[in-house]
């Protein structure tokens, strides 16, 4: 299972308390993880990536294994530790706004 950690506001929307565990089919990428996340939690559609273009929202960031993966291709494989369920994929609200 892939572990995903949501920012506080999205945990509230999705009615989850801690980590989310997702069964991801095929290669583990940003896209496949977000597809699985949105299938399990449809209320999160549009909050992390655009409804139509599927691009990451500007003030959302993706971290894993102490790296910022926000600018990686959505189809690039995520780190092995994430795919193996050892490390979480973190969805972060960017620090902004002053």
């Amino acid at each position, binding site marked *: 299972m892939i572990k995903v950690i949501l*920012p506080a*506001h*999205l945990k509230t*929307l*999705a*009615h989850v308390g801690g980590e989310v565990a997702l069964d991801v089919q095929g290669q583990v990428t940003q896209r496949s993880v977000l597809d699985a996340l*949105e*299938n*399990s*939690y*449809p*209320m999160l*559609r*549009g*909050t*992390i990536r655009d*409804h*139509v273009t599927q691009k990451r*929202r500007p*003030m*959302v960031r993706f971290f894993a294994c102490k790296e910022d993966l926000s600018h990686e291709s959505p189809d690039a494989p995520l780190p092995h530790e994430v795919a193996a369920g050892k490390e979480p994929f973190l969805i972060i*609200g*960017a620090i*902004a*706004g002053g």
Partner: protein
Amino acid sequence: MSKIRVLVGTKKGAFILTADGKRTKWKVDGPFFAGWEIYHMKGSPVDSNRLYVSQTSGWFGQIIQRSDDGGKTWHQPGTPPGEPTTTPDGMPKGESNKFVYDTSDKTGKPLTTHQWYDGTQHPWEFKRVWHLEPSLTDPDSVYAGVEDAALFRTTDGGKSWQELSGLRGHGTGPQWTPGAGGMGLHTILLDPKNPGRIYIAISAAGVFRSDDHGKNWKPINRGLKSQYIPDPDAEIGHCVHRIALHPSRPDVLFMQKHWDVMRSDNRGESWHEVSGNLPTDFGFPIEVHAHQPETIYVVPIKNDSEHFPLDGKLRVYRSRTGGNEWEALTKGLPQKDCYVNVLRDATAVDSLEPCGIYFGTTGGQVYGSADSGDSWTPIVHDLPAVLSVEAQVL
């Protein structure tokens, strides 16, 4: 005895204020959706327990929330968790947060750009829902005014939203330009006597009317004069801040423009100024008394660059003559050192006798009057900046 529910949207959450018909002792519930901007919340006129909320965030975008029990519980009216997000034939099911401009070949394809601040053309980009206007007859139908300016409608209780693209497509859309606060469709008025008639207002495009349920639209800005645009009498481009009507006489419209308070007696076909003796005619909200169609209210502020009351005195102005002759209402309102603003959707009236009036400020106060504005009391002092206020009689 009747009960009052006041719905308050703020920069950091929603609040519900309730009182009995005397409107003296208030209970404050909230924050709901804490930390999110609540641009608007409004109840259905035919089911007071059906509430709709526009919940937005610069980080996570647009959320629509709905309550079926007067705000005790809330849900996003799209596909519930765990259910398939597509129908058996592969069609997407309801997604309450999805506002996608019409790009169909027949109706939406040409609607690609509008004018940007620098005069170039810029793609329409959805940002947020400014205003939700529930149908006068069906609790599942709601209109949504959005930024960048467009009108959407749901007929399934908020599960899915479709654009009424005839508005952007009527002809002047590519000339619309954002105001300083963005290009928002912020006002939607439904005519109770003519079910097909809808008025909307956009900053900074102006007022538009449809007589056929939102299919076809026309600009109705004749008589507006705006010195800050190249052609002061232009068909569009006026920064209309708010329009209002009385349900018993929906052909008469009142407007608070960027500058000028205006009136139309013919469904917006022409407008004339009724600023009269106001000390300044710049402001955002305008409201009509619940029982007296010629009694209107505005909250003037100093000017377009100093969005606070003149001389630090918070004064609501009332006209009992449909404009021109105004009186300051000050009893109970701060008359020194007050530098808050009242935003365009932050006033409301209730239909009790005497009429109640409410407004919220950018300083987080919500004031109420149970005597048509003669005197005011603060219901709550220290909320986040207030974006919207609506009142319901239960």
